[in-house]
């Protein structure tokens, strides 16, 4: 067990609903290179879904398709029972899909608090005039959202750095602030691209706890890319395995773990 404790209820006992996101026959090409080849899978409401695979398998590309940053040449994305039309990334964010990045993508010149507040911008609606005069809705909103953000700050235990410019923080805390910024948007689906990359064991355990708690307390659906197999097997309800842009396995961790194709992909297979 990497974290989370033994008391975690089995998937059936938690509120896992119907599929909220469905990827249907997604194919993504960059020029002559096919990054994703005809992949379909779904994500159920409230579950933790992992995407794993060797380097270059197309995992991050898949996340970029979900967040609208890449547009697949073929295939459909169905979100909450509707086929998603071509959207710009900020429109996808507005629909309730938030994400973190493999390489931290925080706003270096802003404080931790401002970074997290930026995550809530789609929940704020004061007019420019009201903001200019700091009057009425603008002022009320700022205070109300600050309250919400403080709750997330408490949850992720970063109270002591809330006014520190992000650039000064150590790596582990930056990762946590990025998670906080994504959670602040109150997303329906949270995409995490290697949230534990480059962390030591202790930081990984903390991060696992935060991910599980976010899933339990806020009921956030989580799609996660991770290389640490221990973490993936412990956290996730179902796992998609990719290799060279193709899906080679899909199912609960215990079945995927013993799948022949997965073992071959990770360990290599003798040709000849």
């Amino acid at each position: 067990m990497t974290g989370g404790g033994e008391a975690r209820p089995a998937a059936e006992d938690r509120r896992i609903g119907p599929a909220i996101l469905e990827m249907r026959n997604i194919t993504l090409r960059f020029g002559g290179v096919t990054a994703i080849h005809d992949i379909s899978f779904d994500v159920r409401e409230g579950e933790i879904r992992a995407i794993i695979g060797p380097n270059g398998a197309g995992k991050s590309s898949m996340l970029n398709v979900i967040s609208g940053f890449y547009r697949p040449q073929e295939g459909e994305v169905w979100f909450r029972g509707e086929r998603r039309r071509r959207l710009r990334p900020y429109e996808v964010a507005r629909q309730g899909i938030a994400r973190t990045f493999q390489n931290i993508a925080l706003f270096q010149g802003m404080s931790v608090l401002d970074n997290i507040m930026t995550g809530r911008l789609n929940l704020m609606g004061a007019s420019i005039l009201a903001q200019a005069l700091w009057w009425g809705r603008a002022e009320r909103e700022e205070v109300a959202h600050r309250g919400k953000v403080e709750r997330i700050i408490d949850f992720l235990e970063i109270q002591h750095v809330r006014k520190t410019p992000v650039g000064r923080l150590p790596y582990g805390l930056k990762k946590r602030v990025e998670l906080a910024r994504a959670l602040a948007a109150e997303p329906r689906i949270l995409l995490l691209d290697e949230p534990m990359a480059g962390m030591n064991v202790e930081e990984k355990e903390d991060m696992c706890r935060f991910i599980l708690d976010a899933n339990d307390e806020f009921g956030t659906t989580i799609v996660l890319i991770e290389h640490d197999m221990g973490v993936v097997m412990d956290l996730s309800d179902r796992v998609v395995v990719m290799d060279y842009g193709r899906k080679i396995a899909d199912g609960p961790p215990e079945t995927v773990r013993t799948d022949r194709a997965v073992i071959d992909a990770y360990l290599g297979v003798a040709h000849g």
Partner: protein
Amino acid sequence: MLYREAGDFKTSYAADGQTFPIAFDRRRYQAVLVLAFGVVPFLVNDYWANAVLVPFLIYAIAAIGLNILTGYCGQVSLGTGGFMAVGAYACYKLMTAFPEVSVLLHILLAGTVTALVGMLFGIPSLRIKGFYLAVATLAAQFFLVWLFNKVPWFYNHSASGQISAPERSVLGLAVTGAATAPWAKYLVCLAFAVGLAWIARNLTRGSLGRQWMAIRDMDIAAEIIGVNPLRAKLTAFAISSFYVGVAGALMFAVYLGAVEVGEAFGVNKAFLVLFMIIIGGLGSIFGSFAGAAFLVLLPVLLKNLLVDGLGWSTALAAHVELMIVGALIVFFLVVEPHGLAQLWRLAKEKLRLWPFPH
């Protein structure tokens, strides 16, 4: 011992988010405002108003405007002179077309016209960044100056090609034209500068300001968390140009009175305002004032020192001044890219702990 957070407990998020969290700072700014509005107008003479205070306030407005675009939203602009010219010519056309309307309203409308023009020239920013955008705005600078020289309608077909401000008064008090008292010029500019600085502060600490800064710090991440880059960049261009336009209108109508566009609003002016925000501090309202004060006061000081004090020739002093300004810009870019505002911030951090820094 006055400069402390200790004992000044915040009990609400509104109190914690205020501009000056330290009580001493708040009182200091209030004192400056009382002095600026209540005492200085009675003391100011023609030399101080025209050589120092009025240009300082006008450049401060322009610097805040450019700082919103460059310092907060990260879009470099070299078109400031051109946009100031738009403000000046819009103000001139409005003043001559509607003489019965208050000139203060004309100045605000001139800002609005400039905002629209600025948005138009901001559209390329969606496709191009950095260097390339700077060159595109430089094109705006040259195009606008050329336009105001070329089309006689803009200067009402006057023989000299200049525009000159007709006499207008507010509440029976002349604010434009030759008969304006120095303290009236000063008060008009001060009122605009204080009001616009307050609005800029509100905008930059709220949701819109955070969107600008998000675009500045990492535009791709900003878009993925939900910032609409089109809206963020165009609002920055519009609001920035509004400030620059008001500064141009004030410079023409209140300060200079008569203007020849290539001379008053050439590319030199664009660089001057850019230097102000670099020296003062990118992304800081206080820095805009500090930079404007520095570059307005420096020539006056050097002239007094070198010409009157040491008896150098005016030409030599002017060249030395250019060299000093150039050296300072290099110095700030290398040593302290966040400018005077950052030095001031560091001094305040130190002061908070003084005299026991450990």
